[in-house]
């Protein structure tokens, strides 16, 4: 049952990305190009998604547990720390070069553009590498034993 529901969630997410035009890196890069050929569409995607999730989360949290699991498991950290900011800065640079963030990179895969086929495996290698970097002393919370 869980895989079937997971597939459904992924399909709805992916159809949302495609309908929103976000599987097209040109549209994303044109949103980021405020002083050029600006296309504000991405702001409408984020607005629609955030308002829907804001309302829907509060509905979902009225139950004591999610339907398929024992408990809710949402991030508890509130620290604005070095790994968060360094990671976000690196991600921003890559997003600005390629026009892909992780969701659209998967959704673009079946269209088989050469740029996508170069980007996606590199992103997966980066996801693995980034997990390793998190363990480095420079990215450990201050004052805690390492």
């Amino acid at each position, binding site marked *: 049952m869980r895989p079937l529901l997971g597939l*459904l969630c992924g399909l709805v997410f992916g159809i949302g990305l495609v309908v929103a035009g976000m599987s097209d890196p040109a549209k994303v890069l044109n949103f980021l190009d405020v002083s050029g050929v600006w296309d504000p*569409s991405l702001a409408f995607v984020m607005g629609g998604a955030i308002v829907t999730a804001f309302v829907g989360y509060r509905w979902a949290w009225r139950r004591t547990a999610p339907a398929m699991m024992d408990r809710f498991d949402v991030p508890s950290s509130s620290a604005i720390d070095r790994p968060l900011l360094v990671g976000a800065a690196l991600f921003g640079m890559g997003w600005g070069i390629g026009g892909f963030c992780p969701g659209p*990179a998967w959704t673009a895969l079946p269209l088989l553009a050469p740029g996508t086929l170069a980007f996606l495996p590199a992103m997966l290698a980066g996801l693995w590498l980034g997990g390793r970097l998190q363990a480095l002393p420079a990215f450990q919370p201050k004052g805690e034993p390492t």
Partner: protein
Amino acid sequence: MLLPPTEFTPWASLFGGILIGLSAVMVMALFGRIAGIAGISRSALGMSGAGDRSWRIAFVAGLVAAPVLVSLVDPGAIAQSVPSSLPLMIGAGLLVGVGTALGSGCTSGHGVCGLARLSARSLAAVTTFVGFAMLTVFLIRHVFGG
């Protein structure tokens, strides 16, 4: 990287965004988790020990299947221009992977789900990655004249 200008699509993008938000709500109501694609990808590929992999693998399969489904309904729906420089796309993919793993989230995890949870940590991440992405596009398009 000369990519074409894109048309502003407020309604399609708003509707697509609502679908993305709906998927985030489904993931919360069913699995009790944030619908962050970077994190889901890492868990699906066994890079982190975050519980049940089966629904996450199916979620990624749904993302990949989505454009195929959409193109069956409307063959003209998917227009795409992917940057063609393969070395740049490999570099971009690495940055996006490392950055989202290190910063614990991407456009969906911090952007949609984090902001819907009113997380100050996610707001700091979003401001940082959008800022760096806009700066990167500005440098590529308007300073180095890409």
